[in-house]
Protein backbone atom coordinates (compact mmCIF):
# COMPACT_ATOMS: atom_id res chain seq x y z
CA UNK A 1 0.00 0.00 0.00
CA UNK A 2 1.59 3.23 -1.19
CA UNK A 3 0.23 6.46 0.27
CA UNK A 4 1.50 9.84 -0.91
CA UNK A 5 1.20 12.87 1.35
CA UNK A 6 0.92 15.92 -0.91
CA UNK A 7 -0.43 19.45 -0.65
CA UNK A 8 -0.08 21.86 -3.52
CA UNK A 9 0.84 24.72 -1.18
CA UNK A 10 4.09 24.52 0.75
CA UNK A 11 4.19 24.83 4.52
CA UNK A 12 0.80 23.23 5.18
CA UNK A 13 2.23 20.44 7.35
CA UNK A 14 2.90 17.65 4.85
CA UNK A 15 6.11 16.49 6.45
CA UNK A 16 4.69 16.79 9.97
CA UNK A 17 1.70 14.63 9.02
CA UNK A 18 3.75 12.19 6.92
CA UNK A 19 6.40 11.56 9.58
CA UNK A 20 3.85 11.29 12.41
CA UNK A 21 1.69 8.89 10.41
CA UNK A 22 4.70 6.77 9.43
CA UNK A 23 5.86 6.72 13.06
CA UNK A 24 2.50 5.35 14.27
CA UNK A 25 2.03 2.55 11.71
CA UNK A 26 4.65 -0.04 12.74
CA UNK A 27 2.93 -0.42 16.15
CA UNK A 28 -0.09 -1.75 14.24
CA UNK A 29 1.97 -4.70 13.05
CA UNK A 30 2.55 -3.34 9.57
CA UNK A 31 6.09 -3.03 8.22
CA UNK A 32 6.25 0.63 7.16
CA UNK A 33 8.73 2.76 5.24
CA UNK A 34 8.82 6.55 5.22
CA UNK A 35 10.11 7.91 1.89
CA UNK A 36 11.16 11.54 1.51
CA UNK A 37 10.53 12.41 -2.15
CA UNK A 38 11.08 16.13 -1.58
CA UNK A 39 14.59 15.62 -2.95
CA UNK A 40 15.38 19.31 -3.36
CA UNK A 41 15.04 19.83 0.37
CA UNK A 42 14.44 16.55 2.21
CA UNK A 43 13.81 17.31 5.87
CA UNK A 44 11.74 14.43 7.26
CA UNK A 45 15.01 13.13 8.72
CA UNK A 46 14.97 16.02 11.20
CA UNK A 47 11.80 14.64 12.80
CA UNK A 48 12.63 10.95 12.47
CA UNK A 49 16.36 11.00 13.23
CA UNK A 50 17.11 7.88 11.16
CA UNK A 51 20.37 5.93 11.08
CA UNK A 52 21.51 5.96 7.43
CA UNK A 53 22.93 2.56 6.49
CA UNK A 54 23.50 2.86 2.75
CA UNK A 55 23.94 5.59 0.19
CA UNK A 56 23.81 5.08 -3.58
CA UNK A 57 24.54 7.53 -6.35
CA UNK A 58 21.81 8.41 -8.82
CA UNK A 59 23.07 9.24 -12.27
CA UNK A 60 21.66 10.01 -15.68
CA UNK A 61 23.31 8.91 -18.94
CA UNK A 62 24.76 11.77 -20.95
CA UNK A 63 26.05 11.45 -24.52
CA UNK A 64 29.71 11.33 -25.50
CA UNK A 65 30.39 11.84 -29.21
CA UNK A 66 33.10 9.93 -31.04
CA UNK A 67 34.33 12.52 -33.53
CA UNK A 68 35.96 9.86 -35.68
CA UNK A 69 32.60 8.18 -36.30
CA UNK A 70 30.33 11.29 -36.34
CA UNK A 71 29.31 12.36 -39.85
CA UNK A 72 27.53 15.51 -38.67
CA UNK A 73 24.15 14.28 -39.91
CA UNK A 74 22.28 16.30 -37.29
CA UNK A 75 19.84 13.53 -36.19
CA UNK A 76 20.89 13.79 -32.54
CA UNK A 77 20.21 17.53 -32.38
CA UNK A 78 16.89 17.10 -34.13
CA UNK A 79 15.59 14.60 -31.57
CA UNK A 80 16.85 16.43 -28.46
CA UNK A 81 13.93 18.36 -26.94
CA UNK A 82 16.18 20.05 -24.42
CA UNK A 83 18.75 21.53 -26.81
CA UNK A 84 21.51 19.69 -24.98
CA UNK A 85 23.36 19.12 -28.28
CA UNK A 86 24.53 21.71 -30.77
CA UNK A 87 25.13 20.51 -34.34
CA UNK A 88 27.60 22.97 -35.83
CA UNK A 89 28.90 22.94 -39.41
CA UNK A 90 32.02 21.01 -38.39
CA UNK A 91 31.22 19.34 -35.06
CA UNK A 92 28.63 18.40 -32.45
CA UNK A 93 28.85 19.90 -28.95
CA UNK A 94 27.26 18.44 -25.80
CA UNK A 95 25.84 20.47 -22.89
CA UNK A 96 25.55 17.98 -20.00
CA UNK A 97 23.71 20.42 -17.72
CA UNK A 98 20.83 20.62 -20.22
CA UNK A 99 20.65 16.84 -20.81
CA UNK A 100 17.73 14.93 -19.25
CA UNK A 101 19.36 11.55 -19.96
CA UNK A 102 16.60 10.18 -22.20
CA UNK A 103 19.06 8.40 -24.50
CA UNK A 104 17.24 9.48 -27.67
CA UNK A 105 20.41 10.82 -29.33
CA UNK A 106 22.25 7.51 -28.98
CA UNK A 107 19.22 5.66 -30.39
CA UNK A 108 18.94 7.77 -33.55
CA UNK A 109 22.68 8.01 -34.31
CA UNK A 110 23.10 5.99 -37.53
CA UNK A 111 26.89 5.74 -37.06
CA UNK A 112 26.94 4.45 -33.49
CA UNK A 113 29.04 7.51 -32.66
CA UNK A 114 27.28 8.21 -29.37
CA UNK A 115 28.10 6.33 -26.18
CA UNK A 116 26.73 7.26 -22.79
CA UNK A 117 28.52 8.24 -19.64
CA UNK A 118 26.86 8.44 -16.22
CA UNK A 119 26.61 11.86 -14.61
CA UNK A 120 25.75 11.87 -10.87
CA UNK A 121 22.78 14.09 -10.04
CA UNK A 122 21.99 12.98 -6.50
CA UNK A 123 21.90 10.16 -3.95
CA UNK A 124 19.42 7.71 -2.45
CA UNK A 125 19.94 7.07 1.26
CA UNK A 126 18.47 4.10 3.15
CA UNK A 127 18.25 3.48 6.83
CA UNK A 128 15.85 3.04 9.70
CA UNK A 129 14.31 4.97 12.55
CA UNK A 130 13.44 2.33 15.15
CA UNK A 131 10.87 -0.02 13.59
CA UNK A 132 10.35 2.32 10.69
CA UNK A 133 12.15 1.93 7.38
CA UNK A 134 13.59 5.18 6.06
CA UNK A 135 14.44 6.27 2.51
CA UNK A 136 15.28 9.67 1.13
CA UNK A 137 16.53 11.17 -2.10
CA UNK A 138 18.87 14.12 -2.20
CA UNK A 139 19.43 16.17 -5.33
CA UNK A 140 23.05 17.29 -5.73
CA UNK A 141 23.68 21.02 -5.25
CA UNK A 142 23.50 22.90 -8.55
CA UNK A 143 21.42 20.24 -10.31
CA UNK A 144 18.03 21.13 -11.80
CA UNK A 145 16.49 17.71 -12.43
CA UNK A 146 14.64 16.30 -9.43
CA UNK A 147 12.69 13.59 -11.27
CA UNK A 148 15.55 11.10 -11.90
CA UNK A 149 16.33 11.17 -8.16
CA UNK A 150 12.65 10.68 -7.25
CA UNK A 151 12.41 7.76 -9.70
CA UNK A 152 15.48 6.18 -8.09
CA UNK A 153 14.05 6.57 -4.58
CA UNK A 154 10.79 4.97 -5.70
CA UNK A 155 12.67 2.05 -7.25
CA UNK A 156 14.29 1.46 -3.86
CA UNK A 157 10.90 1.21 -2.09
CA UNK A 158 10.20 -2.28 -0.64
CA UNK A 159 7.52 -4.37 -2.35
CA UNK A 160 5.76 -5.27 0.88
CA UNK A 161 4.18 -3.30 3.70
CA UNK A 162 3.02 0.28 3.89
CA UNK A 163 4.96 3.02 2.14
CA UNK A 164 4.40 6.67 3.08
CA UNK A 165 5.72 8.98 0.37
CA UNK A 166 6.33 12.57 1.48
CA UNK A 167 5.78 14.60 -1.72
CA UNK A 168 7.32 17.94 -2.64
CA UNK A 169 4.97 20.94 -2.75
CA UNK A 170 3.52 22.20 -6.02
CA UNK A 171 1.95 20.37 -8.95
CA UNK A 172 4.82 20.08 -11.41
CA UNK A 173 7.02 17.16 -12.54
CA UNK A 174 8.49 16.22 -9.11
CA UNK A 175 4.99 15.90 -7.62
CA UNK A 176 3.68 13.94 -10.60
CA UNK A 177 6.70 11.61 -10.41
CA UNK A 178 6.06 11.08 -6.67
CA UNK A 179 2.34 10.35 -6.82
CA UNK A 180 2.31 8.36 -10.06
CA UNK A 181 1.25 4.78 -9.33
CA UNK A 182 0.40 5.25 -5.62
CA UNK A 183 -2.75 3.72 -4.13
CA UNK A 184 -3.95 6.83 -2.33
CA UNK A 185 -3.05 10.52 -2.12
CA UNK A 186 -3.65 12.40 1.13
CA UNK A 187 -3.65 16.18 0.64
CA UNK A 188 -2.65 18.26 3.62
CA UNK A 189 -4.06 21.76 3.27
CA UNK A 190 -4.89 24.80 5.35
CA UNK A 191 -8.15 26.79 5.40
CA UNK A 192 -6.82 29.96 3.76
CA UNK A 193 -7.30 31.40 0.27
CA UNK A 194 -3.73 30.34 -0.48
CA UNK A 195 -4.30 26.79 0.70
CA UNK A 196 -7.49 26.59 -1.36
CA UNK A 197 -5.93 27.99 -4.51
CA UNK A 198 -3.12 25.44 -4.48
CA UNK A 199 -5.36 22.59 -3.31
CA UNK A 200 -7.53 23.06 -6.42
CA UNK A 201 -4.44 22.78 -8.63
CA UNK A 202 -3.20 19.68 -6.79
CA UNK A 203 -6.62 17.97 -6.88
CA UNK A 204 -6.70 18.69 -10.62
CA UNK A 205 -3.33 17.00 -11.07
CA UNK A 206 -4.34 13.98 -8.96
CA UNK A 207 -7.56 13.52 -10.91
CA UNK A 208 -5.75 13.76 -14.21
CA UNK A 209 -3.55 10.88 -13.05
CA UNK A 210 -6.68 8.87 -12.17
CA UNK A 211 -5.82 8.68 -8.45
CA UNK A 212 -8.10 8.90 -5.43
CA UNK A 213 -7.50 11.56 -2.83
CA UNK A 214 -8.67 12.53 0.65
CA UNK A 215 -8.09 15.76 2.53
CA UNK A 216 -6.49 16.63 5.86
CA UNK A 217 -7.19 20.20 6.98
CA UNK A 218 -4.37 21.40 9.18
CA UNK A 219 -4.83 24.41 11.49
CA UNK A 220 -8.51 23.81 10.81
CA UNK A 221 -9.77 26.50 13.20
CA UNK A 222 -8.03 29.44 11.51
CA UNK A 223 -8.84 31.13 8.19
CA UNK A 224 -12.17 30.71 6.42
CA UNK A 225 -14.57 28.01 5.25
CA UNK A 226 -13.37 28.09 1.60
CA UNK A 227 -11.53 24.76 1.72
CA UNK A 228 -14.40 22.91 3.41
CA UNK A 229 -16.94 24.38 0.97
CA UNK A 230 -14.75 23.33 -1.94
CA UNK A 231 -14.34 19.79 -0.57
CA UNK A 232 -18.08 19.47 -0.19
CA UNK A 233 -18.78 20.76 -3.70
CA UNK A 234 -16.21 18.40 -5.18
CA UNK A 235 -17.18 15.39 -3.08
CA UNK A 236 -13.74 15.22 -1.47
CA UNK A 237 -13.50 13.27 1.75
CA UNK A 238 -12.12 15.35 4.65
CA UNK A 239 -10.69 12.59 6.83
CA UNK A 240 -9.02 14.67 9.50
CA UNK A 241 -9.06 18.21 10.87
CA UNK A 242 -6.14 19.21 13.04
CA UNK A 243 -6.77 22.39 15.04
CA UNK A 244 -4.10 25.05 15.32
CA UNK A 245 -1.95 24.64 18.40
CA UNK A 246 0.94 26.67 19.69
CA UNK A 247 2.37 23.59 21.43
CA UNK A 248 2.56 21.80 18.07
CA UNK A 249 4.35 24.80 16.55
CA UNK A 250 6.79 24.83 19.46
CA UNK A 251 7.54 21.11 19.08
CA UNK A 252 8.03 21.62 15.36
CA UNK A 253 10.40 24.51 16.05
CA UNK A 254 12.52 22.17 18.20
CA UNK A 255 12.46 19.52 15.43
CA UNK A 256 10.34 17.18 17.55
CA UNK A 257 7.48 15.09 16.20
CA UNK A 258 4.17 16.31 17.63
CA UNK A 259 3.02 12.67 18.09
CA UNK A 260 5.77 12.32 20.70
CA UNK A 261 5.87 15.84 22.11
CA UNK A 262 2.25 16.99 22.19
CA UNK A 263 -0.39 15.20 24.30
CA UNK A 264 -3.47 14.28 22.26
CA UNK A 265 -1.78 14.69 18.88
CA UNK A 266 -1.13 10.97 18.44
CA UNK A 267 -4.83 10.23 19.10
CA UNK A 268 -5.78 12.55 16.25
CA UNK A 269 -3.26 11.03 13.87
CA UNK A 270 -4.42 7.50 14.78
CA UNK A 271 -7.58 8.36 12.82
CA UNK A 272 -5.46 8.79 9.73
CA UNK A 273 -3.49 5.62 10.54
CA UNK A 274 -6.83 3.77 10.84
CA UNK A 275 -7.87 5.02 7.43
CA UNK A 276 -4.61 3.69 5.95
CA UNK A 277 -5.00 0.32 7.74
CA UNK A 278 -8.61 0.02 6.50
CA UNK A 279 -7.36 0.46 2.96
CA UNK A 280 -4.64 -2.14 3.54
CA UNK A 281 -7.25 -4.65 4.74
CA UNK A 282 -9.53 -3.87 1.79
CA UNK A 283 -6.65 -4.38 -0.63
CA UNK A 284 -5.81 -7.72 1.04
CA UNK A 285 -9.40 -8.90 0.58
CA UNK A 286 -9.20 -8.11 -3.12
Amino acid sequence: MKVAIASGKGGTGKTTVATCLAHLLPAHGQPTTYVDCDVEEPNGHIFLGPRIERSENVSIPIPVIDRELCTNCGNCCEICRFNALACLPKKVMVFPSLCHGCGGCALVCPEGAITEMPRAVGVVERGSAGDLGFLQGRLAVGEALATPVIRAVKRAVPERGIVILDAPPGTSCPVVETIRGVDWVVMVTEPTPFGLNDLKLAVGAVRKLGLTTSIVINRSDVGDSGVEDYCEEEGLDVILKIPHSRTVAEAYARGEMPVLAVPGYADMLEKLADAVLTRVREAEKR
Partner: protein
Amino acid sequence: MRIAVTSRGPEMTSDVDPRFGRAKWFVIVDTETGESEAIDNESGVQAGSGAGVQAAARVAGLGVEYVLTGHCGPNAFRTLTGAGVEVITSVTGTVEDAVGKVKRGELSPTDAADVNGHWT
Protein backbone atom coordinates in the same frame (compact mmCIF):
# COMPACT_ATOMS: atom_id res chain seq x y z
CA MET B 1 31.18 39.34 -44.38
CA ARG B 2 27.91 37.88 -43.03
CA ILE B 3 26.54 39.22 -39.75
CA ALA B 4 23.62 38.01 -37.62
CA VAL B 5 21.91 40.74 -35.59
CA THR B 6 19.32 39.86 -32.92
CA SER B 7 16.29 41.98 -33.67
CA ARG B 8 12.85 42.81 -32.33
CA GLY B 9 11.47 42.92 -35.87
CA PRO B 10 12.30 41.67 -39.39
CA GLU B 11 13.48 45.04 -40.79
CA MET B 12 16.85 46.76 -41.01
CA THR B 13 15.16 49.60 -39.11
CA SER B 14 14.02 47.29 -36.28
CA ASP B 15 15.63 47.66 -32.86
CA VAL B 16 18.33 45.25 -31.75
CA ASP B 17 16.85 42.62 -29.39
CA PRO B 18 18.90 42.57 -26.17
CA ARG B 19 18.38 38.79 -25.82
CA PHE B 20 20.26 36.26 -27.92
CA GLY B 21 18.65 32.82 -27.50
CA ARG B 22 15.13 34.17 -27.16
CA ALA B 23 15.45 37.08 -29.60
CA LYS B 24 12.33 37.60 -31.70
CA TRP B 25 14.25 37.68 -35.01
CA PHE B 26 17.70 37.33 -36.49
CA VAL B 27 18.47 39.69 -39.33
CA ILE B 28 21.30 38.26 -41.45
CA VAL B 29 23.19 40.95 -43.33
CA ASP B 30 25.77 40.44 -46.08
CA THR B 31 28.00 43.52 -45.91
CA GLU B 32 29.45 42.98 -49.40
CA THR B 33 26.15 42.79 -51.29
CA GLY B 34 24.08 44.79 -48.79
CA GLU B 35 21.43 42.06 -48.87
CA SER B 36 19.56 41.11 -45.74
CA GLU B 37 17.29 38.28 -44.70
CA ALA B 38 15.10 37.97 -41.59
CA ILE B 39 14.91 34.65 -39.71
CA ASP B 40 11.98 34.14 -37.33
CA ASN B 41 13.26 32.73 -34.02
CA GLU B 42 9.91 31.53 -32.70
CA SER B 43 11.42 28.11 -31.84
CA GLY B 44 13.98 29.88 -29.65
CA VAL B 45 11.35 32.07 -27.98
CA GLN B 46 9.32 28.93 -27.16
CA ALA B 47 12.23 26.65 -26.19
CA GLY B 48 11.89 25.06 -22.74
CA SER B 49 15.63 25.02 -22.22
CA GLY B 50 18.76 25.54 -24.28
CA ALA B 51 17.38 28.46 -26.30
CA GLY B 52 20.89 29.90 -26.55
CA VAL B 53 22.42 26.63 -27.76
CA GLN B 54 19.71 26.18 -30.36
CA ALA B 55 19.95 29.75 -31.65
CA ALA B 56 23.75 29.62 -31.75
CA ALA B 57 23.74 26.39 -33.80
CA ARG B 58 21.18 27.90 -36.13
CA VAL B 59 23.03 31.14 -36.89
CA ALA B 60 26.35 29.27 -37.12
CA GLY B 61 24.71 27.05 -39.75
CA LEU B 62 23.88 30.18 -41.76
CA GLY B 63 27.58 30.85 -42.19
CA VAL B 64 27.82 34.12 -40.26
CA GLU B 65 31.15 35.42 -38.97
CA TYR B 66 29.74 37.82 -36.36
CA VAL B 67 26.78 37.87 -34.00
CA LEU B 68 25.63 41.28 -32.74
CA THR B 69 23.35 41.24 -29.70
CA GLY B 70 22.65 42.79 -26.32
CA HIS B 71 23.67 39.92 -24.05
CA CYS B 72 25.01 36.42 -24.54
CA GLY B 73 25.01 33.61 -21.95
CA PRO B 74 27.69 30.94 -21.40
CA ASN B 75 26.17 28.08 -23.42
CA ALA B 76 25.40 30.27 -26.43
CA PHE B 77 28.86 31.81 -26.21
CA ARG B 78 30.56 28.40 -26.07
CA THR B 79 28.51 27.19 -29.05
CA LEU B 80 29.20 30.28 -31.17
CA THR B 81 32.91 30.25 -30.32
CA GLY B 82 33.00 26.51 -31.06
CA ALA B 83 31.68 27.27 -34.53
CA GLY B 84 34.22 30.06 -35.04
CA VAL B 85 31.67 32.87 -34.78
CA GLU B 86 32.73 36.12 -33.08
CA VAL B 87 30.27 37.62 -30.58
CA ILE B 88 29.74 41.33 -29.98
CA THR B 89 27.55 42.19 -26.97
CA SER B 90 26.06 45.42 -25.52
CA VAL B 91 24.82 46.42 -28.99
CA THR B 92 21.87 48.85 -29.02
CA GLY B 93 19.98 50.94 -31.61
CA THR B 94 18.64 49.66 -34.92
CA VAL B 95 19.97 46.74 -36.97
CA GLU B 96 21.37 49.05 -39.65
CA ASP B 97 23.09 51.28 -37.04
CA ALA B 98 24.72 48.17 -35.54
CA VAL B 99 25.91 46.90 -38.92
CA GLY B 100 27.28 50.38 -39.74
CA LYS B 101 29.29 50.41 -36.50
CA VAL B 102 30.83 47.02 -37.28
CA LYS B 103 31.75 48.13 -40.79
CA ARG B 104 33.46 51.22 -39.40
CA GLY B 105 35.34 49.05 -36.89
CA GLU B 106 33.70 50.73 -33.89
CA LEU B 107 32.73 47.46 -32.17
CA SER B 108 35.00 44.68 -31.03
CA PRO B 109 34.24 41.05 -30.15
CA THR B 110 33.93 39.93 -26.56
CA ASP B 111 36.04 37.10 -25.13
CA ALA B 112 33.44 35.84 -22.62
CA ALA B 113 29.73 35.53 -21.97
CA ASP B 114 28.42 38.72 -20.34
CA VAL B 115 25.49 37.19 -18.40
CA ASN B 116 24.89 33.98 -16.42
CA GLY B 117 23.02 31.00 -17.77
CA HIS B 118 19.51 30.17 -16.65
CA TRP B 119 20.17 26.50 -15.92
CA THR B 120 23.82 26.22 -15.01
